[in-house]
């Protein structure tokens, strides 16, 4: 059984193609269900975000499964195979695992270290779980990816610091005012940049927002879309005196607020801090206003410098994050190898169990004279002997360091015990439990069944 990843992301495909194979429009659960129904895989999950669409499968034959996935994409999204094929990437086993771990850690994101992606990976897993399309392989894969994502988040500062101008402004506001719900925001100028920053603040729960512009109609229009209050331009100073956060983004060629204006605004505020975000170019607020006590003045260059610094710091943290991903991939790969031993282990167990049963059957006429408890005891003792004999070989097989050694050992065991190759190989974990469950039945019932 192999792990297979087929997908497209912002690294390989242009946005129009990504939009067309975005699973979220027609439902990730529907996609998972229709994937799981196909015969070429035994487990399936879909990770779908605006920047990627990735399919994770457990498949006995990766080549066949890959072609089938392409067929699925063509069917599901109604697109041409030749359109999508050049943009697909494909990874197997531990490389597929590495990819998912990097995704979960935010290393593969457009903005490195962005925090939402881990939640999106978790969502992908729970959607697939709800469709009952995940088994032991994808369970282990996704859970290890959560571990990798969490470790990167807690052990590195990859996700720290704002990486957009708007978010840098929001995080500054939070550092000055704490909770922002009760604060008042004034937007000066009804342009696009001011609107963007105001939207970010609105998302922080700001309830009171006033908007003013030289053109009253612009202010009124923006105020309507933002659920804010429009204030006439003449009342600018009064509105600012009542605000805590001011966003200036007018197209004016000369400063709208000089130092004296801001000083006058500060008077009635009795030292309450004022945070001015001047994102206009040329600047709307005289830089000298920033010298006033309790005035925090940041212009677009200041914010961009913060963003740049944070981006540099994130890049420096990437090496540590990659190292964590390496460690988790190594753990997962060891687990995968130990799974490779399962068919041999199952065959070995079945072989031993067959011998045990045939010996018990051979002795049946001698045992039939014994009371039922004694017969049950004989069954129990023989079973325990078999278990004990198999314990160490099983552990050793699962701990073998690489697949070549494993296949050498498997060959040797197959020959030594004349195992039937492939016996139980398809069953995976479930087969392991069959002999145990069986042996708990009393010996009489088993005989009654066979007879």
């Amino acid at each position: 059984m192999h792990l297979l990843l087929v997908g497209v992301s912002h690294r390989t495909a242009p946005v129009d193609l990504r939009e067309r194979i975005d699973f979220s429009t027609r439902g990730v659960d529907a996609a998972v269900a229709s994937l799981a129904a196909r015969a070429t895989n035994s487990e399936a999950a879909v990770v779908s975000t605006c920047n990627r669409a990735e399919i994770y499968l457990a498949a006995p034959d990766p080549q066949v499964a890959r072609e089938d996935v392409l067929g699925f994409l063509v069917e599901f999204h109604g697109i041409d195979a030749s359109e999508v094929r050049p943009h697909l990437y494909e990874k197997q086993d531990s490389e597929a695992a590495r990819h998912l771990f990097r995704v979960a850690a935010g290393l593969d994101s457009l903005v490195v270290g962005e925090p939402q992606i881990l939640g999106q990976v978790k969502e992908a897993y729970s959607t697939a779980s709800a469709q009952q399309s995940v088994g032991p392989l994808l369970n282990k894969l996704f859970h290890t990816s959560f571990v990798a994502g969490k470790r990167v988040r807690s052990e590195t500062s990859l996700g720290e610091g704002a990486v957009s101008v708007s978010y840098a402004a929001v995080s500054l506001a939070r550092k000055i005012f704490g909770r922002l719900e009760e604060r008042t925001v004034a937007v000066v100028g009804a342009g696009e940049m001011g609107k963007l920053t105001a939207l970010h603040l609105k998302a922080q729960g700001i309830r009171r927002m006033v908007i003013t512009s030289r053109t009253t109609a612009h202010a009124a229009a923006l105020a309507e879309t933002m659920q804010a209050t429009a204030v006439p331009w003449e009342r600018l100073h009064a509105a600012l005196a009542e605000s805590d956060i001011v966003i200036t983004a007018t197209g004016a060629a000369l400063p709208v607020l000089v130092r004296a204006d801001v000083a006058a605004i500060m008077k009635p505020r009795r030292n309450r801090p004022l945070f001015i975000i001047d994102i206009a170019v040329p600047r709307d607020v005289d830089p000298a206003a920033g010298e006033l006590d309790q005035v925090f003045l940041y212009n677009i260059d200041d914010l961009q410098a913060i963003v740049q610094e944070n981006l540099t710091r994130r890049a420096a943290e990437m090496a540590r994050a990659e190292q964590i991903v390496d460690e988790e991939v190594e753990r997962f790969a060891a687990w995968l190898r130990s799974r490779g031993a399962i068919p041999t282990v199952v065959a070995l167990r079945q072989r031993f169990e067959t011998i045990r049963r045939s010996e018990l059957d051979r002795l049946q006429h001698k045992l039939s004279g014994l009371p039922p408890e004694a017969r049950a005891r004989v069954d129990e003792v023989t079973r325990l002997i078999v278990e004990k004999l198999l314990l160490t070989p099983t552990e050793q097989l699962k701990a073998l360091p690489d697949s070549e050694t494993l296949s050498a050992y498997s060959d040797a065991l197959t020959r030594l015990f004349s195992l039937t190759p492939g016996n139980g190989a398809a069953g995976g974990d479930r087969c392991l439990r069959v002999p145990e469950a069986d042996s708990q039945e009393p010996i009489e019932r088993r005989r009654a069944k066979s007879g």
Partner: protein
Amino acid sequence: MNTIPLIAYVAAAGLYAAFFVTGRASIGRVASTVLAGGALLHTFAMGMQTMSIGHVPIADTTSAISTFVWLLAIAYLYTEMTTEERAMGVFIVPLLVALQAIPAIRPGLEHRAPILESPWFGVHVASLLFAYASFALACVIGITYVLLFKEIKAKHLGFFYKRLPSLQRLDAMNVRAVTVGWLFLTIGVVVGGIWTVQARADAVLDPRIRAMSILDPKIAVAMLSWAIYSFQLYARRAIGWSGRRAAWLSTVGFGIVLLNFVAVGYFLTKSHNF
């Protein structure tokens, strides 16, 4: 007796510093646990001292310092629990270490003069020690406020920006600590006055009681600190002196308190040297 909690405080100071630098929550939790353990050991030490001398060890300056450290540790742990902020520990715990070193190196004699057996005296010292602990917290919060304020103002968002809570939060914590401290300082001073009047009648000849006046350095400096904190609280309401100015005032106020508590207490006072 005072050395064992000191060792725990030293360990906690190291852990808080490590937490502050690395920002790892797990180290922070260990630091809090070690500090709580130190405070617990300190409680036992004080309990044993109380049993052996028959009263709470607060009568001489040295044991009062140890009691103050104990109160400050508890007040800080309480603040930490209620605000979920551990960043302050790196400033508070070294103060615990520095002050606890005094009783650890120089154990108090604790011969309590008969005139100190009045319950008024116990209330007087206990309120003042609690007030000082609150002022210590306010001072540390004030210092961190100023550090963060400067970083944001200078647009160099770095070390403190990443680690400290918001300015607004620090300001609110500061005013709460100063208010509590001011209340206990007032109670302590008033009760001290009442006790002096009583003691004057009981022990007319004791030179220390005779020296109890507003001109004694210890009392004069205490009144000065009361004036500063009163002004801080008044100015916040009346003329909007919050934030940075309040932070500076509480720092200056605690400087004076500490000077009075240790330096004046050991060397200058004629009235309070018991």
